[in-house]
């Protein structure tokens, strides 16, 4: 097969590739890492490059205008090398690496009743061994076990080879005084002997913290709390984008990527993220990662599978079965988390393919499994998980809402970072908008909360009809026919920080409508499947890091949240990491998560047409059945 030379402006030397090679593959060969948030599916347009010499075959020119193509732009993931070419990589914004939470985050208070000596499965014991003599030639390990038995009442202990290798030295360095760290209560085997995690020379003082971490692996963001297991205090909260994002922004893209020889890559990427967070948290607390002896991990089923290198393909294929929901206790070295190699890694249990440990942990954290009140718990995110129930029963479902509310896949969408418009108001007469920008800078795009308020305002001011179509006959230059059809200008180029008009297109609006319709349909069908009317729902708890920003009034006006008294809504923030934190502290709560997961009844929405019907009904502003939204109906009347 013919070979061609591809020269990248950013690479030191050209690469040779055979006919048919994707530009993105050629770039990788040249050592250039292109941003591919959509996983190389030609959806996001972020990998656009300029072919300055020669030509490529463009399979898809999505998100490129004909002028762009004229100017040589091509999507690296969708363009095929068929001759010698030179390629320029345009300067583009990398995915902004910003810590989504830091030291300014509100302090988490440990549960008032927390008592490490009762609740914590990790125990630290100070032992004083009798030194061996010619008369007592008992081996070191038996000596230690005897001391444990006599001084701490610990019967049997498991130990790894690694610890045996250093045992003799540690005992002698400490002059036969030693501190051992044990995992005394293994959740998956309560009758098993305790497991030795570490042995330290000498006696460690009581006020020296014992470290653990709670980790939430989100599809988009990974969060980690560093916790003193003795006091329950959270010493550090750190978060970072999941390094897998560049290989696909949703779980399906990741699963497919993994199934095509990408399993190891994805595992390495998420481990890099996790270990980076461990390092940051330890640096802040000025401790060594080796002193972390336990971690709990929550995350959706796909994320957990990918973290552990377990093939995830069966998750996306009918009948949608994960390889494992209840993962046995693991140790850090086998998982690849760079903390104490013997540290316990406890991956919390999931419920089904699309309802994972993040939700069982979230339910624990939300407290809904302890209340008699009928509670709706919404995780407003890409996977749109929903739980309904109370202490008596719990049902759950997931609906693919897509990343629209996270600003992804939008013409001018962005995450809730500096420069994002987070709230919009539209003048009903001039149709001009005013807005608030995170960080008080020139706007660069719109984040989820901005999109929700924008959609509500466009609807209430009549820029949109109820089916979400932009009305072109409004007699304002702010509504116009754009490249992707009708669009509305929120901020003209001169006001923005990106040098072009910030607009929302009808395609964007369709995406938002689908996202909100999926979430609304998800919880209404869930409620209907167990015969609970919406008005019987006593509280609505909203989780996900996105939850902090939702404007309830606007979210109701677009039909995302049910029309009920605002005092029934409560925002909980990241419930997944909070649940992981509680399970980290208290083994009884860990057991409780297990029973929550076992008790949750998963409802498969795709099993019949009910969901689709509810979805179509919700695919309207605010909803096809206006009687479900009396407050919005009233608001519409006053606008007239």
């Amino acid at each position, binding site marked *: 097969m013919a070979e061609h030379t591809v020269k990248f402006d950013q690479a030191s030397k050209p690469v040779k590739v055979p006919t048919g090679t994707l530009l993105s593959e050629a770039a990788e060969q040249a050592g250039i890492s292109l941003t591919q948030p959509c996983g190389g599916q030609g959806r996001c347009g972020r990998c656009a490059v300029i072919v300055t010499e020669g030509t490529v075959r463009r399979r898809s020119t999505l998100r490129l205008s004909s002028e762009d193509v004229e100017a040589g732009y091509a999507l690296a993931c969708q363009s095929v090398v068929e001759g010698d070419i030179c390629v320029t990589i345009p300067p583009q914004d990398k995915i902004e690496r910003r810590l989504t939470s830091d030291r300014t985050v509100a302090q988490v208070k440990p549960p008032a009743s927390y008592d490490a000596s009762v609740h914590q499965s990790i125990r630290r014991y100070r032992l004083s061994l009798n030194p061996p003599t010619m008369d007592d030639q008992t081996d070191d390990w038996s000596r230690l076990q005897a001391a444990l038995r006599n001084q701490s009442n610990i019967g049997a202990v498991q130990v790894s080879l690694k610890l045996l290798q250093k045992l003799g030295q540690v005992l002698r360095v400490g002059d036969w005084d030693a501190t051992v760290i044990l995992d005394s209560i293994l959740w998956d085997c309560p009758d098993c002997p305790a497991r030795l995690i570490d042995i330290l020379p000498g006696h460690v003082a009581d006020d020296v913290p014992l470290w653990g971490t709670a980790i939430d692996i989100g599809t988009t963001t990974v969060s980690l709390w560093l916790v003193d297991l003795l006091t329950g205090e959270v010493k550090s909260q750190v978060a970072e984008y999941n390094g897998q994002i560049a290989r696909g922004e949703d779980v399906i893209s990741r699963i497919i990527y993994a199934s095509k020889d990408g399993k190891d890559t994805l595992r390495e990427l998420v481990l890099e993220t996790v270990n980076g967070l461990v390092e940051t948290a330890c640096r802040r607390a000025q401790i060594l990662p080796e002193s972390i002896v336990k971690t709990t991990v929550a995350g959706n089923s796909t994320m957990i599978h990918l973290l552990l290198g377990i093939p995830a393909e069966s998750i996306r294929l009918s009948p949608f079965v994960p390889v494992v929901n209840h993962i046995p206790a693991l140790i850090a070295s086998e998982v690849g988390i760079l903390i104490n190699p013997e540290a316990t890694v406890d991956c919390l249990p999931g419920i089904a393919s699309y309802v994972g440990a993040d939700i069982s942990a979230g339910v624990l954290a939300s407290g809904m499994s302890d209340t008699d009140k009928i509670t709706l718990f919404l995780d407003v995110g890409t996977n749109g998980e929903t739980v309904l129930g109370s202490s008596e029963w719990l049902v759950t479902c997931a609906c693919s809402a897509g990343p629209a509310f996270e600003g992804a896949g939008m013409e001018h969408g962005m995450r809730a970072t500096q420069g994002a418009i987070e709230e919009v108001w539209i003048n009903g007469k001039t149709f001009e908008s005013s807005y608030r920008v995170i960080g008080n800078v020139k706007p660069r795009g719109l984040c989820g909360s901005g999109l929700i308020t924008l959609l509500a305002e466009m609807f209430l001011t009549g820029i949109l*009809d*109820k*089916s979400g179509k932009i009305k072109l006959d409004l007699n304002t230059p702010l509504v116009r026919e754009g490249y992707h059809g009708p669009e509305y200008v929120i901020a003209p180029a001169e006001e923005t920080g990106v040098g072009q008009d910030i607009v929302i297109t009808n395609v964007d609006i369709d995406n938002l409508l689908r996202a909100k319709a999926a979430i609304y349909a998800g919880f209404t069908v869930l409620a209907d499947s167990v015969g609970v009317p919406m008005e019987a729902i006593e509280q609505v708890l909203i989780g996900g890091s996105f939850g902090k920003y939702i404007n309830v009034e606007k979210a109701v006006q677009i039909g995302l949240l049910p029309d009920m008294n605002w005092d029934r809504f409560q925002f909980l923030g990241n419930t997944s990491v909070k649940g992981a934190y509680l399970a980290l502290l208290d083994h009884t709560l860990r057991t409780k998560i297990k029973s929550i997961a076992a008790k949750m009844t998963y409802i498969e929405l795709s099993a019949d047409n009910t969901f689709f*019907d509810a979805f179509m*009904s919700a*695919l*309207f502003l605010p909803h*096809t*059945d206006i009687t479900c939204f009396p407050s919005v109906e009233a608001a519409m009347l006053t606008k007239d």
Partner: protein
Amino acid sequence: MPVEIPKDKWNGQVRVVTLGATADQGGTRTSTVTVGGETTMPFMHFEGEIPHRPVIALEIKDRRPDDWSSLLLDLWSDKADDPAVWAKAAEEAGADLIQLSLSLTNADGNPTTPEAAVDAVKKVLAATGLPLLVFGPGQADVDNELLVAVAEATKGERLVLGICEDKNYRTIVATAMANDHLVIARCPMDVNLSKQLNILISDMGLPLDRVLMDPTTGALGYGIEYGFSVMERLRMAALQGDAMTQLPMIVTPGFEAWKTKESKVGVDVPESWGDWEQRAINWETITAVALLESGADILVLRHPESLKRVRAAIEDLMTAPETV
């Protein structure tokens, strides 16, 4: 043992819609047709009112169609060459209404002009006193162009302009409002989409007693079960008081049935399909009867024999049983 008759209590009613306008009412029709008004599911006379019987329209075209079955073309023979003659023949065949479907092109293959469309409509109006439904060829821009011209030229006739769809309704609704006509809102076999389109049309200011809805039904063997159930659901919603579904339903079993292979094709078909002509009539009749049973108020047919059979069924079903 006396059995207590279980009666469903409905609190909604289908809107009463009158098609066509007489001279007194600002039009030129010699009679009008009124449909709707039901307060119960189809033909449940024992528990509610069915003040107006379902009616039947026959479909004609502005010129001899290129794509109709030869069974129909042979039947109408040279009457199909002149819409006025055809309309008269349809009236004589027993139609309550005439549906005139405009062609995309004239016989020479040139696009149908607004003038030609208006001319055809006027000829039909002159030939028959029955109320008229006028359908565009089914391409948004052409429909808009032709129907606006027709609507303006026939102001006050209370014609039924077909068809409004979610992607293309604003122009037709606007012209119907300005010229005192009615519209048909058509959606592809989905309760929610039907309702949404009715809301959008209503939001434009057209009173709902000038709107008919066509839920799209499919033919026997080609998805009729979806149409059947969508109609039952829409009618139940209407009776339960949902204003946006309380519109009389118009269905086009003639169009649906006559585009199926069973009706269109007479040769090289399985022996188990039987006689072509009988099969074709049965196909149209059964499609119509199934839709009648699920709530149709207006049925548009193409074959006079089907009309006769469906008419007989309506007569029978509109009789209230004396005892049950």
